[in-house]
């Protein structure tokens, strides 16, 4: 445990001493704010159109039920954020293993008495912790406004859980990509490519059979997030994202162990 904690502290220090962490946090906060306020602006315009009377006043009774904060602002923002996460997350994960390999410190780690499970476990724990922090930052604006709109704490919690689970899933892909290369650029590009590819296979439904469509939905990221966005928490969706994290752990371990055999 002492060894694991030592590496955990080093990873936290390395992450927060790197400008990338602050850059990504700032970028996520800015993008979230921009996306959110853009939808809020559109919502206000729509409200204005429906609520304006010919006499120059306002009448809220003329606003249709489907024009509300949840359906017009919150849900579209969450949907867009889920897609936008594919860009900043690989910037966080690309350095985790690839940097150690490119500057030769991987050999220092592997010869220091730390097991590969401890190395991978510490790195994944810190990265996943940072992703949760990132999601909390991304959630500030929507929560502040939607809490006023009466979405409900349970729905908010489900969406936060879903968005965080999705982010952890994308981060898992990024970590696995980082473990198999010494180039941070290759790791980031591979993570973006793989996450984008597995994001949603909905577009294939018109061309494939029902069974294959169901299978593609089962392995894609977005369908598992979508139910959270609707306020529904399914164990199967949580299992999917936890499974991605477990697969990332196994792949990262394999990558380190394989280098002992393959060089």
């Amino acid at each position: 445990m002492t060894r694991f904690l030592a590496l955990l502290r080093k990873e936290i220090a390395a992450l927060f001493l790197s400008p990338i962490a602050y850059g990504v946090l700032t970028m996520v906060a800015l993008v979230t704010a921009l996306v959110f306020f853009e939808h809020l602006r559109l919502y206000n315009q729509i409200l204005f159109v429906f609520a304006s009377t010919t006499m120059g006043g306002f009448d809220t009774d003329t606003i249709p039920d489907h024009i509300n904060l949840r359906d017009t602002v919150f849900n579209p923002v969450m949907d867009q954020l889920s897609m936008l996460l594919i860009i900043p997350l690989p910037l966080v994960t690309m350095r985790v293993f690839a940097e150690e390999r490119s500057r030769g410190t991987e050999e220092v780690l592997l010869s220091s008495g730390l097991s590969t499970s401890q190395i991978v476990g510490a790195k994944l724990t810190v990265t996943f912790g940072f992703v949760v922090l990132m999601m909390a930052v991304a959630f500030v604006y929507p929560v502040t406004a939607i809490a006023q709109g009466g979405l409900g704490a349970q729905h908010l919690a489900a969406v936060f859980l879903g968005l965080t689970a999705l982010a952890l899933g994308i981060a898992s892909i990024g970590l696995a990509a980082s473990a198999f290369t010494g180039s941070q650029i290759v790791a980031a590009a591979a993570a973006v490519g793989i996450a984008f590819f597995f994001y949603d296979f909905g577009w294939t439904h018109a061309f494939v059979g029902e069974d294959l469509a169901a299978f593609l939905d089962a392995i894609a990221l977005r369908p598992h997030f979508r139910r959270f966005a609707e306020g529904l928490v399914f164990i199967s969706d949580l299992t999917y994202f936890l499974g991605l994290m477990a697969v990332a752990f196994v792949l990262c371990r394999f990558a380190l162990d394989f280098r002992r055999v393959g060089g």
Partner: protein
Amino acid sequence: MTTAQPTATGVRVVARDLSRRFGDHLALDRLCLEIEPGETFGLLGANGAGKTTFIRLVTGVLLPSSGSVHVDGLSPAKDPRGVQQKLGYVTETSRLYPELRVRGFLRFAGGARGLKGDALDAAVARILLRFDLESVCDRLVGNLSKGFQQRVSLAQAFLHDPPLLIVDEPTGGLDPLQQDEVRSILGDLRGERTVILCTHDLGEARRLTSRVAILAGGRLRRMGPTEEVLGEREPLELFAPLAATGTPE
């Protein structure tokens, strides 16, 4: 520089028919050697001779393709953690974390070797003193000169007071003054613990080692007391790769 205090007696390192292959390339070919406890042993050879491969096999970073190596009776292939607890490893060129401060880096290195609490504090304080790093202990590793970085690299290998020290090309890329400084640190270790010094600098080997092995093309070319091996004929010819049928002398 503070005078070194003997703290350990060293361990025996034994390699038997040790081979390592990378695809079609045979980096180490049936190497047999024994390094005695407390000995400063030089591993010489040109670039690509197999020195670093041998070291990686001893540290457990790589697995052998065939044959075996044992450190104090333990196999790095089967019990890497057990072997790593007995060794300190200074890699070729300083492979450090430039974003960490010297003290923070040493605390991490000590923690990774299982030191904690007062034992860790004492080990870091002792090493900072021994390697004259107190003046730079709060500076970022990346802002240090190469000489200081190499000192930090050496210091991290001593934190857990290992009986075996493995040093790979410790003076590569350093200026003559820094080289002399590192050599004097290594010179202080003679007899204190087992040291495997991997180098292609003959002067360094003459100055620091009692016995050397010369590797060429992954094979053992010659092994014996340093003066005998390096003094009896033009040593540069020993660095040339062996013919395919060549056998160790």
